[in-house]
């Protein structure tokens, strides 16, 4: 009799515990789900060059069910400003941060400190250390490869030999690891094909950039290493201020495409910014999962655009992502 009573009490207790557990699970389940919040800190995010990247971020946020927050910043940014922006986002309960690093001595240290608080993913390399590949997780285009491809396209246009033709290289800043990688790749691919790089200048943004470019000696080819450089070169070429130089470049904005479409630019290497944005956000969301996943170092593809193939089915989609 006593055993029966014990069994009865035990049975009812077990059931009561199960009911409470289920009720707790139901209440927890009915509450707001924990949506990962990913903050993105890039310079001048509204700029045309980030359109495809932002679209990729947005699509990934939609697919991953994440909250995306793009921090408004100016065209330039110091390490301190970037640190402040990152800390503010961490305070605002960002689960991961996607950052375009700023060139500076303290940049890496600042990013390391931030990385201890939340996962930090870069969209460009920081200062490259010799023998040390990928000091930070980064998803970006293969800059050196793009530089090489650009050189190859240039050579292809002139049957592999440039002869006595001259080249001028324009870039926004020489301190960007991306730009230096592109330049390195370009120079390596160009090799000893005869063409001489007459000048290589940085500071291409805005009217100062146009003035700078116009002041350079005439060359046969102007090679633009980034979006702002290509925009400046395109504008100058449209105004016939480049003394008939042909423009080649690496860029991913609709402005760059427009210059290609209008024949001002001869060839364009376009990084797959959509994939960079999509993969960055996906990796950032995954890093906020139950266990800390190691963030990846990954490169995305690039496409060679020419006027002839600009409106092919595949390239139209690239234009579509840029236009969003």
């Amino acid at each position, binding site marked *: 009799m006593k055993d029966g009573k014990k069994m009865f009490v035990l*049975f009812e207790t077990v059931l009561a515990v199960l009911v409470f557990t*289920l009720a707790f*699970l139901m209440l927890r389940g009915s509450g707001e789900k924990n949506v990962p919040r990913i903050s993105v800190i890039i310079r001048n995010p509204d700029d045309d060059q980030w359109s495809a990247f932002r679209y*990729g971020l947005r699509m990934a946020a939609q697919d991953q069910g994440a909250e995306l927050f793009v921090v408004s910043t100016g065209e330039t940014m110091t390490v301190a400003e970037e640190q402040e922006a990152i800390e503010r986002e961490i305070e605002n309960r960002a689960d991961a941060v996607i950052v375009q690093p700023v060139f500076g001595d303290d940049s890496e240290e600042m990013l390391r400190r931030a990385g201890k608080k939340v996962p930090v993913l870069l969209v460009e390399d920081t200062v490259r250390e010799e023998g040390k590949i990928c000091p930070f997780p980064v998803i970006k285009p293969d800059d050196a490869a793009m530089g090489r491809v650009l050189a190859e396209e240039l050579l292809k246009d002139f049957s592999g030999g440039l002869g006595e033709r001259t080249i001028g290289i324009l870039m926004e800043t020489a301190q960007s690891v991306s730009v230096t990688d592109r330049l390195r790749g370009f120079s390596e691919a160009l090799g000893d094909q005869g063409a001489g790089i007459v000048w290589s200048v940085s500071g291409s943004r805005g009217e100062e950039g146009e003035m700078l470019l116009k002041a350079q000696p005439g060359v046969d080819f102007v090679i633009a290493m980034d979006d702002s450089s290509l925009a400046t070169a395109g504008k100058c070429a449209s105004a016939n201020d480049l003394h008939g130089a042909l423009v080649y470049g690496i860029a991913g904005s609709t402005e760059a495409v427009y210059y290609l479409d209008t024949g001002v630019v001869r060839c364009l290497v376009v990084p797959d910014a959509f*994939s960079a944005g999509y993969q960055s956000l996906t990796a950032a969301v995954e890093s906020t999962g139950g266990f800390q996943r190691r963030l990846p170092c990954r490169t995305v593809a690039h496409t060679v655009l020419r006027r002839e193939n600009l409106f092919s089915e595949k390239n*139209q989609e690239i234009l579509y992502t840029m*236009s969003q």
Partner: protein
Amino acid sequence: MRSRYSSFWEKVKPTGMQSVIMLVFSVISISIMLILGIVMYLRFSASSRQEMIQSTQKLMEQAGENLEDYLIGMRQISDALYYNVIKENDFSDQDKEIQRGMSLLYAANRDRLKSIAIYNQYGSLMAAEPVASQKEDPDVTRQDWYVQAVSEMENMHFSTPHIQNLFDDDAFRYYWVISLSRVVELTNYGEPQSGVLLVDMDYSGISRMMKQINAPANGPYYYLCDGNGRIIYHMRQIQISNGLFRENSRAAAAHRDGVYDEVFEGERRKVIVNTISYTGWKLVGVIPYSVFTSGMFDTRYFIVMLMLLMAMMLGVVNRVVSVRISSPILKLNTSVIEYEAGEKPEIYIGGSMEIRHLGHSIQQSYEQIDMLMRKIVLEQTERRKSELEALQSQIHPHFLYNTLDSITWMIEGEKNDEAVFMISQLAKLFRISLSKGRTVIRIEDELQHAVSYMNILKVRYKNSFSISFDVAPELLSCCTVKLILQPLLENAIHYGVVGMDDCGEIVVTGRVSDKMAVLSVTDNGIGMSAEEVSCLLTDSGRVHGHGSGVGLVNVNNRIQILFGKEYGLVIESEPDEGTTVSIHMPLIPYTEENRKILEKGQRTGNEGW
């Protein structure tokens, strides 16, 4: 393994009635509840799934109608432009009229249109709205919309979305449009020519409509594709192009309108197809089965919780019912155990009618057993007492003293023969009295004992009475309790014939009557009244006045203990006429076996022989 389970079951197996009832009730009720729960869940999930499919279908029908309205609007613009503007005017001298007509139509549909353009048969731009500079060499004749229009001149053609590659835009913008193209007949310098009318719809119009029905979360989603499965709108269009996502649009495009089940990329899903009229486009709704499952998650929790609560409640109910049923039985059992242990003399009476009846029955049984036990004990006591008295009668000292005194007197009077006779009679008397300790003897021996006894008493009473024996010979070899005639003869002498001055007569007869052996002792003494007779066999406390002290009651009891209640003494008496005391016994042949059986208090089975 099996023996381990069985030994475990042996350990936990409920043994108590209450536990068994509770376990059985619980198992049955929980099983029923489980079945009900599962059936309810399946039914609910099926109806929920059906409801979701129906709501999706309705949503798609609505969206399809909106799309059709939108596309019809585009066609109406094209028709209006063609029939009201192009056909009515000559491009050579009425270009302003044409431009105005196009402007009016464009202005009225600005939010839906990107541009309107008319090209001649060579691909040259004849007119466009909004007025914009054409690109240097767009070569429209190689563009898909132009090729389609020319290939099927009688139809209007909707293209898939594409970047508009016609006009120069200084703002560096590229527009995503869907082109509606048709071959038109235009007039130039009075000459009819063929041309192509192009209405570029803003893709964002369709995109907006599709976005409205597409939820951002991972739920059902909708996409639009043409008849060949080429995507027109998909919320993951670029992911599909980049290989990050795959869509089974070709299969969907091949379906007619309806609901289909498919497994794509290892995922089961429902696909609902709705065809947009005229264009052949397919509006496709996709509901992954995971959506049904996730939608049912809370329901599952709820049903499981409901089942657990019901199990708790049933547990309580089962407990109450099992206690209610088993409690009276357990109390009855406890009272029986206590009764058996001698702790409590009463049996529990309570609970339902059946259990009360059971209690009453057990109570009565115990009472009967008690009564029988007491009776047996009494009988045994009586038996022992009778035996003791019989033994005492054998060695009655007064009787022995008188007899020996008579013998002494005979010897002194030199009546040697008489003395020898007396001694031999006394010897016979004692031999039969002892009978080797047996209780049951032959009737012949009992008669011999009676004869010896009477011979001794006749000497003592100087032949003041007569005695005769008349016994049927077939009775002689039957069984009898020993020493039952002696008390009767003693009573006959003492209460019947003493003092009757030589006329006292005692007759001992033996007959078979109604399959019984009947031995009778009849005297012609003073007799008794009927009241006295009726008291003789019940008044066991009567004080014996004379004789050996063995009373009629004792004789009657001994006969009944040995042979049963249906046998015993029958007394008949008439005052002043005499008394007859009959011994009724069964006719049992005397054998050693029968003797032993009778002495053990059992029946021989030969009664009535």
